[in-house]
């Protein structure tokens, strides 16, 4: 390594990277989740969410696969895109993932938000155990509802 180290700024010491093989699998789970929801493939949701997963959004919380399906059915659900995922290793079997999403509505309007996930390693692969969804309110121009670095590092 040739570079001169710069002064460390937080949160480096608390941000442990995820090994590449796990990172790629987790990226696939997040992308597949968007696909399954877009396709309304509710009976396959267990491929991405843990049985007892908890989903928290500004308009309510859902628990368990059945609860998540029920909530998802009530949403409009334009196809969403997941971008900008950063991963933090909590331990060998748990990873924090912070991503952004955006969706393009039928009228061309673009809306975006964030999601903070806890992924757990199961015998069947990585699964989302917790998801927090944040959605800034365009009417109020309120970015305060957004997730922050502190949430990612918590």
């Amino acid at each position, binding site marked *: *390594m*040739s*570079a*001169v*180290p*710069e*002064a*460390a*700024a*937080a*949160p*480096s010491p608390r941000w442990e*990277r*995820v*090994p*590449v093989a796990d*990172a*790629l699998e987790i990226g696939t789970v997040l992308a597949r989740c968007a696909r399954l929801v877009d396709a309304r493939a509710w009976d396959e949701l267990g491929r991405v969410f843990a049985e007892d997963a908890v989903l928290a959004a500004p308009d309510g919380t859902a628990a368990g696969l059945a609860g998540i399906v029920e909530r998802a059915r009530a949403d409009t659900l334009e196809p969403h*895109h997941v*971008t*900008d*995922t*950063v*991963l933090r290793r909590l331990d060998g079997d748990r990873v924090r993932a*912070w991503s*952004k999403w*955006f969706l393009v509505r039928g009228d061309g*309007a*673009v*809306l*975006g*938000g964030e999601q903070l996930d806890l992924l757990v390693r199961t015998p069947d692969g990585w699964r989302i155990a917790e998801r927090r969804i944040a959605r*800034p309110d*365009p009417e109020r*121009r309120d*970015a305060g509802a*957004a997730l*922050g*670095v502190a949430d*990612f590092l918590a």
Partner: protein
Amino acid sequence: MDTPAQPSEAAAAEKITAQDRIEITEILSFSSHLLDNRQWDMFGEVFVPEVELVTQLGEFTGPAGVRAYLERIDLSRYPATHTLNTIVEAVDADTAVAWSRMLLLSWDRRAVGGDFVDTFRRTGHGWRIARRAVAPRNDRASAELAEGGFAPDPYAYALFDDAVLAATEQARR
């Protein structure tokens, strides 16, 4: 076709590891999160202290320069910056150039796009952005130049090639 400074895929793949590639894209993603959160105090997590920013409004230096640029373009119009579709070109074991699409969402539910070309350097704390070239694409100014239509963008290709060449030159020294 003129394609300067393009090592073969196999040769490039050996210069940095898959883990390096994941970390480079994570730094890009984290930089987007920091921008959205206006987390100026943490710019050291993604930029080197002397980072060079090359933009349509001129050149800016250091994290303070990055902030000055963002204030000039009035980032407050945009609640979200997305960085996606990244190509990582390894120059040597400690240098890589990443070419990404960026998408800015505005409060009025529209989006503008462009490209980031980032030159990464491996530091004692991990990969950091040493130079960023910003190329707005199909923005109002370029659409006007194209007489209101879609403006094709040859500049990002040139920016990417230039960044790879410059990083290669620097790595040789």
